[in-house]
């Protein structure tokens, strides 16, 4: 079972990384979402896997899984929604203002570079 979980995390991570490296905002957001799945599951597995042992106390039951990673991951899931929403609004704002959703800043022309520098050099104050 551990093998399946590990490979699933690997798949999610790989897909997330690949998407994060795309050039448009939407795939990058998807990539971060995939990475947050992977990270959340990863954190969850830090408590090791257990089947049929939920951390709900019951009389006569002795074996429970580790509740702490679950609590941490629970808030992480909710917070990651908040962060996704913020990133999405930023992406949206930049697309609506600039009419393109490219991630990288446009390459500056090398010959245009020296002019402002020289100006600054003249008046250092």
């Amino acid at each position, binding site marked *: 079972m551990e093998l399946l979980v590990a490979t699933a995390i690997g*798949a999610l991570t790989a897909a997330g990384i690949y998407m994060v490296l795309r050039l448009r*905002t939407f795939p990058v957001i998807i990539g971060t979402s995939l990475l947050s799945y992977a990270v959340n599951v990863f954190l969850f597995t830090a408590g090791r896997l257990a089947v049929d042992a939920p951390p709900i106390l019951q009389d006569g039951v002795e074996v429970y899984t580790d*509740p702490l990673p679950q609590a941490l991951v629970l808030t992480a899931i909710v917070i990651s929604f908040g962060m996704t929403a913020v990133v999405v609004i930023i992406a949206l704002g930049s697309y*609506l203002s600039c009419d393109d959703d490219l991630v990288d800043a446009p390459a500056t022309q090398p010959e245009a*570079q020296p002019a402002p520098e020289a100006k600054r050099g003249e008046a250092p104050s």
Partner: protein
Amino acid sequence: MFARMSLFLIVALPFIGALLPGLMIQAGRQACFYATFLVTLVAAIGLATHAPAVFAGEVVTARIDWLPQLGLNANFFLDPLGFMFAALILGIGLLIIAYGRAYLSRNDNMGEFFTYLLLFQGAMVGIVLSDNILMLLVFWELTSLSSFLLIGFWKHLPEGRRGARMALTVTGMGGLSMIGGMLMLGNIAGSFDLTVILQNRELIQDSPLYLPALLLILLGCFTKSAQFPFHFWLPHAMAAPTPVSAYLHSATMVKAGLFLMARLWPVLSGTEAWIVIVSSAGLLTMVLGAIIALFKNDLKALLAFSTVSQLGLITFLLGTGTAFGAMAAVFHILNHASFKAALFMSAGIVDHAVHTRDIRRLGGLARVMPATFAIATLGALSMAGIPLLNGFLSKEMMLEEATHVTLYGSPYLVAAVATLGAVFSAAYSFRFIAHTFLGPVRNDYPAKPHDPGVGLWLPPALLIIPVVAIGVAPFLAEPFVKLVTGAVIGSAAELPDTHLKIWHGVNPALMMSAGALVGGLILLALYSPLARGWNAAPRPEAKDIFDGVIARCVSGAERLAGGLHNGAFTRYAAIFLVTVIAIGVHAWVTGSNAAFSRTMLPITPNAVAAWAMLVAATGFLVAVHRNRLAVLILMGVIGLMVSIGFNFFSAPDLALTQISVEVVTIILLLLALNFLPNRSPAESSAGRRLRDGTIALAGGAAAAALVYTMMLSDFSAETIAEYHLANSYKGGGGTNVVNVILVDFRGFDTFGEIIVLGIAALVIYALTEALLSGPVRAKLLNRRFEERRAGDPHPLMMVVLTRVMMPVVLMVGVYILLRGHNDPGGGFIAGLIVAIAVVMQYMASGFAWAAQRQRYPYHGIIGAGVLVAGLTGIGAWFAGQPFLTSAYGYFQIPPMAEFELATAMGFDLGVFLAVVGAVMLSLESFSRLGRRAGTAVSEHAMDIDPSRDAAAEREGG
């Protein structure tokens, strides 16, 4: 016996008092002045209460262990040296405040000025009274900062701003190196307390770190005290108002470097390096400053360079390393503070009365400004070294010392250079008098000169009293000077057995002194041809060099930053990922992996099916990632599989959270996709895709290997899960351990988290507002849709269904919230479920329709949630418990079953409200973007409504 004021209070008073001027200025300038004056006066009186003890040889101390682990303690001590400086700072401070009251015009903000002045004063007093060198460094930096504010006080003047920046750069840089030096010193001595360091002369001088520490500390002292080659900032700082120049740049701040050299004299002085560096720098500064001063036409610039020169003189005296030199230095510090502050104030008076400080436009003022003339002349003659004034005595001692010092193998070199310096300093002093006050009265002054009011002339006049008194009767000052000298040299040398006298008989020093005066007069007589030659001679301008260095630093930094941060975020991400993977691989290879200690759980067919779906969905997602809608569908599949996984592996709470977050995330992304292009263009080259694919596969493999290893190894340390499981019911009163951790054990974390969530939602709201009030609004209004829109955006089936489900969903939400303490559920999940129910209404009947029926603003709901959670936590205080301690009890109201009430439920309610508010505010903000202004608000819940049509028919028919 007096009650003595605590040293803490003396240091703190100016800082506390700095609050007053800004407030009192509301009550008028006079009130502001009185407040400032009184604060300083009280501090000065407090200092005076210690005088008997200090004169009796006692060292007053006040200690608080602040951060003893770091050696940072708030320790203060008052010995004669500290007393002299503190008295100078506070005493001259009083005069400067009185002078400043008269000097500042109505256009200047006096409250601001006096606030800065008091801050500076506090920092200076802190320096001279600190016992702990780390504290001293803090005060040292504070003087740099407050002097920056004071120099740049006239913000409208570019010279003021430039001068302030230059002073801050140079002294700040010196302060940095000083920190390094002081840390080394403290390391060698094993303590950061000055009193301990001063006992360890041999230990420090034998240490290999002595030389670097010395160099770094001297760099700090030289920059602060404007020693060559860092002398250039001081004249530029003269753009400050004259009270600042008189206070900071003659009497106090520039003496901080000297103070520190004197303070550390017992442990640092006496070595070859000390003598060569300090006395050479001092001599060079003395001569250079004096020569430049002679040829300056601005009165304040002349005085500034004369100060540079005089500071050089004192540095030289400290640098000789003899007890006699230290005594002369102490005496000259005292004398210079009195006559130079008086001179600066006189220059300010001239400027005030004649409206110019240009010496070429002055002359003949003696007759029209007799009082100013008398003050300035006495001060300047003292500076020149005329007998019966105090400057003569200490200068004589300097020349005496110079004849005994051998530097660079020559016994005459120092004497010759010192005499040269004295010649020029006599010359500029004479010029100051002759070219300003003597000569015929002119008729082309920019303003009609007159003697000023008492507020301007009294402070310098008071300073002239000691100039004359000590000059005539040096024995008055002798006990004090010897006391301070004793404090400077400590146990490192014997107190010199000389007396302060006017007449020592005819000795080399007297001849040199007389020669200097004659030489000075000759230089003054030859001034015009000399000045022509000086102006024609090429010489390096320190300011240009400084500006050049700064400009080069700026352009270099820009080039570096521009090269590294070229805006290609994808490249940054790639570099970052490769680095992380490489570090991980390195740790993997070099670390030791224990053999797997756990056995794998058996693989079930269901699990394989879910795994296959997840992996397949992920693969498809990457394959079709250009079709953005398909990506969202596949994301839904992945999220569903993840939550099924959570459920399978005994995490029902996570499963519930994951699936509800999944729903709102997809809705959110759909809303966003409404505006974004629905396809990503294929623009990456094959090489790039290969590169990204390689990084991705490496990262995925690394993550998988890491997780796999971790899961099959036992915990490396004992887990704290047992504690939580054991105390969940006993301490928190709940059987759902995850929920008890969230609301109780780690309630503070959760509290922080809901605040973060609320902030994120508010950020989204604010960004939306900003977008909608900018040019984007017009774009949204003119948006053309590429595809046909649905004719029936609010379909009947959906409206009816969501309306019917709404109460059911709300009830489920409340149920989940209430049972959360004992069964899977809780505030987070309930909040998400309720938010989904409300979002459904928006989707069914449209944004405007739903918004009209929205009674409470979502901001308020977020705030209420945080407030409820916080108040629940605070409630524990009333029971005498720490924040967020929960209490619970069991109650029964017949005929219902017994039920539990816990304060944690109040907290969970807060979480619930915050989550509802945050989710709704985010989604609402997105949909606001979609609402095009001008579109009529739909008044009906659905577009096609058979009952409405029937009613219309009936009415019509």
